């Protein structure tokens, strides 16, 4: 462990490689997590099928790739298709569990996740797939740092998408309605907002965001019908650490998670990547609790 640590000091360029890798993948994590934060914050639904939506988006990109269409072009297609899929899911299932207790929504979304996994397995088989952008791989500093162009592109797309969502939430009527519903659903209803439609839209928007993230995942990592779970876990970790309705927090936590995974992988060994992330989450939660207690004492 110490050897690895001293390696980072002796060869500072390794830090650049780790940071770039961490930030690029963290941006994608942040995207999927933002979708979860929306659904959780607005509808109070803890969506366990988050990772499966990501994988579905990945399969759309991969499938279009097999038809000879560049997987990047799958981004809008996946977003639109997944939006529609989200709407159908809302009308058929989510609508019925939204007012129920926590466990009903957890069980329902877990069920959705299982059905999606098996359906993908039946449709595309259990083989591991990956979409290929065919982009160049760039070397910097004498080959000490290398970055695939697709990572730059996907980072740019992440920023663009996140920006678009933020603008949408701030400026559009629907965005305002979503925020109003999140603050107080009953008051929003009294003011004439069709909360049912807001819920449907929020859930579908989440699906669309996940689908877009999935397209990027399929070009940077690999996909398989049963690989959604780690994506769900990451989204939950990020949202829990950032807090609901805190977009800058989600982005920071997403990027931080990417960095933490890379650094812990380098220093402690790849097997500790996820353990470190969960460990950090525990520390964040304890720190928050501590702040809360302090705050309460002041009020007293």
């Amino acid at each position, binding site marked *: 462990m110490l050897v*690895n640590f001293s*390696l980072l000091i002796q*060869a500072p360029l*390794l830090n650049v*490689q*780790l940071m770039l*890798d961490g930030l690029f*993948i963290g941006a994608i994590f942040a995207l999927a997590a933002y979708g979860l934060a929306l659904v959780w914050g607005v509808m109070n639904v803890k969506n366990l099928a988050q990772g499966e939506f990501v994988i579905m988006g990945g399969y759309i990109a991969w499938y279009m790739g097999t038809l000879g269409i560049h997987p990047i072009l799958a981004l809008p297609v996946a977003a639109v298709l997944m939006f529609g899929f989200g709407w159908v899911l809302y009308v058929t299932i989510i609508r019925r569990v939204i007012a129920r207790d926590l466990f009903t929504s957890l069980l329902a979304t877990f069920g959705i996740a299982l059905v999606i996994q098996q359906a993908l*397995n039946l449709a595309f*088989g*259990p*083989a*591991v797939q*990956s979409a*290929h952008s065919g982009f160049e*791989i760039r*070397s910097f500093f004498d*080959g*000490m740092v*290398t*970055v*695939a162009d697709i*990572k730059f592109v996907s980072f740019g797309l992440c920023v663009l998408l996140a920006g678009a969502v933020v603008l949408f939430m701030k400026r559009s009527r629907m965005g305002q309605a979503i925020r109003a519903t999140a603050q107080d659903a009953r008051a929003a209803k009294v003011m004439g907002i069709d909360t049912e439609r807001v819920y449907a839209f929020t859930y579908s928007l989440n699906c669309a965001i996940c689908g877009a993230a999935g397209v990027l995942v399929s070009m940077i*990592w*690999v996909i*398989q*019908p*049963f*690989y959604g*779970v*780690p994506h769900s876990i990451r989204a939950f970790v990020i949202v829990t650490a950032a807090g609901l309705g805190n977009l800058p927090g989600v982005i920071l936590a997403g990027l931080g998670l990417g960095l933490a*995974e*890379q*650094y*812990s*992988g*380098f220093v402690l*060994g*790849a*097997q500790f*990547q*996820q353990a470190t992330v969960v460990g950090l989450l525990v520390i964040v939660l304890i720190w928050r609790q501590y702040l809360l207690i302090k705050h309460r004492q002041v009020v007293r």
Partner: protein
Amino acid sequence: MTTSTKFLRALTFGIAAAGLLAAGPVHAKVEGDTIVIGSAISFTGKYSTEGIHAKNGYNLSVKRINEMGGVKVGGKTYRLKVVYYDDESTPARTAQLLERLIKQDGVKYFLGPYSSPTTIAAAPVIEKYKVPMIEAEGASRALFNKGYKYTFAVLSTSEQYLASAIALAAELAEKSGKKASDVKVAMVFENDAFSQDVRAGVVDDMKKYGMKAIIDDKMPTDLSDISATLTKVKALKPDVLVISGHTKGAATAARQLTELKISVPMIAMTHCEAAKVTKNYGKAANGYLCPTQWAETLSYSDKYFGSAANYNKLYNATYNQKGSVPYQAAQASAAVLVWKDAFERANTFDIEKVRDAISATDMKTFYGDIKFAPAGNNIAKPMVLRQIQDGVYNVVAPLKWASSKIDWPRK
């Protein structure tokens, strides 16, 4: 109680007892002129692709044996037939279905499921009922260190997968004037039973040559990202990089090795073919060493299928396919050949005698030589190491079967 009722009662008991004896598993399970072999294997779930390959292999061999006159036992000719159940790629289900095959269907001879976890679940059931199983798809060494007496495997065990790469590295180092003990090894393995077995084999061989591991990482559980470890590889410049993490680990490794432009003189990894590294990464995958249980270019042969290449042809013609047959199918076919051979040598259907005959197997097949150690693993067939050269898998080790020279150091 009158004498007649006593007599009737005795008669009923007698008939019932005789019925039980007749139905009992003394010479089970042979229906008329058909020997029934059972298998719980994966048609659905995560192992379905390989499970179906294995089933195709079993069926092809059964068809071939029946066409060639079947199995001769006690002067009579029998046909082979396999009864399948789908274990849904779930070990618990494999065990359940085996009990059903044994208790309800009366089957007493078995072919294995697909994968180590399902075979590990099957072996205790096989042992409990003392019925022999010849398996072709479970390589974990957990199957061969428990003292099982009824499980036999035709394939090489998992610790042999990459050990040959270490031997090869030592040999190449010595040829180029270096000491074998100077070879620096980087290891990246998934944290599961199979890959840790592979690792154990590598570590044993490294000890033999006095080599040192400069990196010994386990892959993260989701196998999606090993770039941090590969960055370390870049910094520490090992002579050999060994990787094992099933198909997903191989796919991730190939992608990130390419993206990080890692150049190590020797890279060996399992599951190259399943991860389609040549198709997906083209030139970047050149030089990878990939172990395999079997390849159609090997010079093995037998009287049922002829050469390994002929087997490949027959399989493709039967199942309407092209290219190289997955080794999962070839080893499944070999397992059925062992059954035929054992029945004929035992010359009876007595389960214990058939088991002893399997245990004494010493035969040559298109898949390789088969001879079982007391623990049930095949000790006669080595793992083969192939190297990707210009997008083609060429056998480079062991030297006896090598069709090409190794490209070393890898460019």
